[in-house]
C-alpha cells in the first residue's frame, strides 16, 4: 500500500473534492499551513480561479459570507488558519451557523466547513495556541472532526464537505509531516466512527488529533516493558462513537484520556464524564487525563514544553492507572 505524508493526503483530498463538486469553494489560503508546503496549495488556486479566494483579515465577515453561501447552495470550506482566530468569528459560527437548522425547524441547511489549526505549535504564545474544539462542543449544531493520520484526514475531509451540517475541521500543524498508509481510491470515512489505532489489552488510551500520534509513540515505548496499550481515536467528537470507546474500556478497565484542550471542560473532561456515567462498573482504577493545564500558553520554550501534553506524561499516566 502506498504511503503518503499527511499534507500530501490532505492536498490530494482537496484536489479530489474540488474536482468532484463545483459547489465547493475555498475561502482562505493556509489549508497546508504557513510552512514551506504552502506553495503547493497555490496549485489549487491556479487550477480553480473563481473558486478559491483569499479574504481580508476580517474573520467575522468571511465566516458569515461562507455561512450565507452555504445557505444558498455552495459548499464552502473556510480556513481560519490559527484556531485562536475563530474567536473573531464567534457570532457567525456559534450564533448563526450552529443554530440555523434548528431555529428554522429543519428548513435551512448550512453545509459549511470551518477549518482551523489548533493547539501548541512552538513559540506561538498565548494568542496563537488555543484548542477551541471543546468550546464548540458546547454549541449544539456543530459537527467536530479531528483527524490524526494521513488516511483519516483525507477520508474525513471528504465527509466534512459532503455533510449538510456546519462542521469544525480541527487540524494541527504538527501532523502535516506524519507519514501513513493511504490506499488509492479510499472511501470517505463516516462521522461517528471511532478507530482503534492500536490494539492492546492492558490500558485504553483515548486521544484526539496530534495526541493520537503521541499516544502511539508512548504505546511503542511501553510495549518494550510488556505493557500493551490500546489507542482509541474517536476521530469525530460530534457525532461521537461512544460505543467503541466503551467497548475498549470494558476490555481493559483502565483509561487514560489525552487531549490538548485545557483541563477544565476540554474534550477529556466530557469523555471522562460519560465513561463515569456508563462504564463505571467496568473500571479497575480511577481514570486519568493528560491535558494542558488551565493557564494561558506561555512563550518561553521550556515553559511551553512544560505545559504541553507529551509522551512522557502519557506514559506516567498509564503507569498510574496500572498501579
Amino acid at each position, binding site marked *: 500500500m502506498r504511503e503518503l505524508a499527511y499534507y500530501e493526503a490532505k492536498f490530494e483530498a482537496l484536489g479530489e473534492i474540488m474536482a468532484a463538486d463545483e459547489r465547493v469553494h475555498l475561502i482562505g489560503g493556509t489549508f497546508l499551513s504557513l510552512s514551506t508546503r504552502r506553495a503547493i496549495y497555490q496549485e489549487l488556486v491556479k487550477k480553480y480561479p473563481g473558486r478559491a479566494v483569499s479574504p481580508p483579515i*476580517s474573520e*467575522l*465577515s468571511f465566516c458569515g459570507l461562507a455561512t450565507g453561501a452555504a445557505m*444558498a447552495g455552495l459548499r464552502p470550506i473556510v480556513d481560519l488558519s490559527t484556531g485562536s482566530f475563530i474567536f473573531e468569528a464567534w*457570532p*457567525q459560527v456559534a*450564533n448563526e451557523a450552529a443554530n440555523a437548522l434548528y431555529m428554522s*425547524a429543519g428548513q435551512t441547511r448550512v453545509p459549511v466547513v470551518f477549518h482551523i489549526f489548533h493547539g501548541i505549535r512552538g513559540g506561538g504564545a498565548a494568542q496563537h495556541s488555543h484548542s477551541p474544539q471543546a468550546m464548540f462542543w458546547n454549541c449544539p449544531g456543530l459537527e467536530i472532526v479531528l483527524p490524526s493520520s494521513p488516511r483519516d484526514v483525507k477520508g474525513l475531509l471528504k465527509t466534512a464537505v459532503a455533510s449538510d451540517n456546519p462542521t469544525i475541521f480541527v487540524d494541527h500543524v504538527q501532523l502535516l509531516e506524519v507519514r501513513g498508509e493511504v490506499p488509492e481510491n479510499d472511501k470517505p470515512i463516516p462521522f461517528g466512527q471511532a478507530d482503534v489505532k492500536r490494539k492492546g489489552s492492558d490500558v485504553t488510551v483515548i486521544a484526539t488529533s496530534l495526541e493520537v500520534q503521541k499516544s502511539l509513540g508512548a504505546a511503542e515505548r511501553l510495549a518494550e516493558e510488556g505493557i500493551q496499550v490500546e489507542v482509541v481515536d474517536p476521530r469525530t467528537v460530534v*457525532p461521537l462513537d461512544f460505543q467503541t470507546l466503551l467497548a475498549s474500556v470494558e476490555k481493559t478497565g483502565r483509561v487514560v484520556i489525552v487531549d490538548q484542550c485545557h483541563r477544565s471542560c476540554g474534550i477529556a473532561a466530557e469523555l471522562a464524564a460519560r465513561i463515569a456515567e456508563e462504564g463505571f462498573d467496568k473500571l479497575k482504577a480511577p481514570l486519568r487525563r493528560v491535558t494542558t493545564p488551565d493557564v494561558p500558553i506561555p512563550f518561553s520554550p521550556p515553559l511551553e514544553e512544560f505545559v504541553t501534553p507529551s509522551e512522557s506524561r502519557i506514559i506516567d499516566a498509564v503507569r498510574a492507572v496500572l498501579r
Partner: protein
Amino acid sequence: MLPKLPRQTLLELCRRMFVIRHFEEGLVRLYEQGHFSGHYHLYIGQEATGVPALSCVREGDYLFTTHRNHGHLLARGADPKRLAAEILGRSDGYNKGKGGSFHTVVPSLGFLHTSAVVAGIIPLATGTAYASRALKNGRITVCLFGDGALEEGASPEALNLASLYKLPVLFLCENNGKYGLGRAAGAAQSPSMAAFPLIDLPKAYKIPAQQVDGTDSGAVHGLIAETVEKIRAGEGPHFIEAQTVRWPGSETNWPTVPYPTNASLAWDVGGVPEKVRDWYRQSDPLLIFIRELVEAKQATREEIFGIESDVKKSIEEAMDFALESPYPNPEEASKDIFA
C-alpha cells in the same frame, strides 16, 4: 407620491400595508393578554418602505431581515396565520414554534435565516450573493436592517467584501431614527454613530449609495426597482438608506398602541391623543399612501375602507388560528439539530 404602477397593483400594496398594520396592532393585544412573552419589535410606521421594496424582488431572490421582520415577511406575502402561530410558539408556525418572533423563516419566499443579533445577517447576505454569482443563477440578495446595525464591526467588514467581490446584494437600511416633525429630508445625527450621513459608510467602499424618504412609497419603489435592475445587470452591490419617523408606540419598553389605526385617520386625526397626533397626521406612511390613492383617484374612500375591513377580518382569523394551534410536543426540542 405614488409608485408608477397599475391601479390593481397599488390596491394590492395598500392591502399589504393594512395587513402589516393590523397584524402588528393585533400582536400588541395578544401580548397584553399574555399569549406570548419575550421581546418583539413592530414594523408600524415603516410600511411604505417594506411593501414597495419587497414588491421589486423575484422568486428565488434571497432576503435577510432582523428582529423587526414581521413587516418584511408580510410585505413579501407570508401567511399571517403561520406567522402569528410562530410568534406564539405554536406547532403550526413557520418554524414549528422553535424560532419565535426573532427567527421566523419562509424559505419559499426567500427568507432562509433570520437573525436577532444586530448585524448578524449582514455577512450572511454577502454569502448568498457570493453563491448566486458563483452558481450563475441570476438571484440577487436584499439585506434589510436598521441604522443600528452599521455600528457593528460586521457591517463595514461585509461592505468591504461586497465591494471587493462585486457581489449582487442590495443593502437596504431602514433608518427609523429620524427626529422632528413631518417628512422633512435628512435624518438626525445619531448619538451612537459618528458617520453622518450614514451613506458615507458604503460610499467609503465605492458602493453607490442613496437616501430616500421611506414614507414616500413612490420614491421608494422607483429607486429600489431601478437599483435592483442594476444589481441584476451585474453592477455590484448598492446601498439605500430609507428614512422614516419612528412610531410613537415604540417609545415605551414594550410596544403600545397609542391609538388603533383605521383608514379614516387619513382625513381626520381628531380622536388621536394630542401627544401622538402629529405623527399620525404627518408621518404615518400608511395614511399618507391612502390619502394619495384617493387624491390621485386610484381608489375611493369606500374602496379603501372595504379593503381594510377585509384585512381586519383576516387578521382576526389569523390570530384565532394561532391561538388554536397546539404547542409543539417536547420531542420536537431534540429534532433538527443536525441534518
